[in-house]
């Protein structure tokens, strides 16, 4: 909530500076993910990006989310992606054709998206301010929220995860069901 004594947008406070630096790292590494010519580098830059984002979460006092981010994204998903790169026998070195011919249209659309979104959020939230209070996103508070209020979606989600697992197995194994 906006408080009465709301500091101006500039100069940024300490946490904000940290956040912005982490944000720049995340954005830069994300840009490298989508532009690098090496597949494996892309995956590694993704690690950097996710890590920086985890830092951002920490600054925003969402500690638990930050750790989950590190554990699942950096720990699991990127590994999965690397396995994918490996299994599809992608070239490890530079490859010239990682971008499709659609690149310039994509760039235009991307820039336009950025323009629209940024202008919208800036115009919408340039006055929004909240002081950070540590402990808001601690494991305890979050855990009690998940297992009280959100327990049903949580359970549903676990079923979803299970079925996704089974689906992945079914899809990746050639000797199960499928084509005649």
């Amino acid at each position, binding site marked *: *909530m906006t408080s009465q004594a709301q500091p101006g*947008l500039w100069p940024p406070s300490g946490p*904000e500076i940290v*956040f*912005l630096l982490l944000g720049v790292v995340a*954005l830069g590494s994300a840009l490298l*993910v*989508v532009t690098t010519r090496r*597949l494996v580098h892309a*995956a590694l830059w*993704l690690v950097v990006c*996710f890590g920086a*984002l985890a830092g*951002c979460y920490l*600054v*925003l006092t*969402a500690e638990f*989310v930050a750790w*989950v*981010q590190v554990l*699942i*994204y950096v720990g*699991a*998903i990127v590994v*999965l*992606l690397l*396995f*994918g790169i490996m299994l*599809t026998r*992608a070239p490890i070195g530079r490859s010239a054709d990682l*971008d*499709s011919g659609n690149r310039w*249209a*994509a*760039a235009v*659309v*991307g820039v336009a998206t*950025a323009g629209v979104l*940024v202008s919208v*959020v*800036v115009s919408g*939230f340039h006055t929004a*301010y*909240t*002081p*950070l209070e540590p402990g*808001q*996103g601690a494991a305890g508070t*979050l855990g009690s929220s998940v297992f009280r209020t*959100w327990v049903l979606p*949580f359970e549903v*989600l676990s079923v979803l*995860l299970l079925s*996704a*697992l089974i*689906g*992945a197995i079914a899809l*990746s194994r*050639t000797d199960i069901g499928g*084509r005649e």
Partner: protein
Amino acid sequence: MHIVYPVVVSALLFSIGVYGVLARRNAILVLMSVELMLNAVNLNLVAFDVWLRDRLHSGQVLTLFVIVIAAAEVGLGLAIVLAVFRTRRTIDVDRLRALSENAAGTDDESGDGDGGGDREGDRNGGGSRGTVASGGGEAAT
């Protein structure tokens, strides 16, 4: 904390993800770009959760859910990519054109079905289906 900072970062991250999805040929890179977009959303959720001081912590909880779903999605996505790779020997998105209209020249004739070429049109349609299926079969073997 001014909300505008995380929100702008999130918007830019999302746009980068959009660019990646649209511009990258490799399916795994596309998946990575999707992850970027999901993370942009996560950042938004957390930022607004903090701003609105939600007592139920819906933003952060949803972020957790999104992360879980993203994991599932990557798992499934990779499985699909692998399946495609097995049948097509490639995971270049712009070369997977099974969705396209059949570009064979006979297609135009199936248009005047009211003139009596209906059966022909059927045959063509069947034929095109056949080529797709047989192409898949060849790749699989």
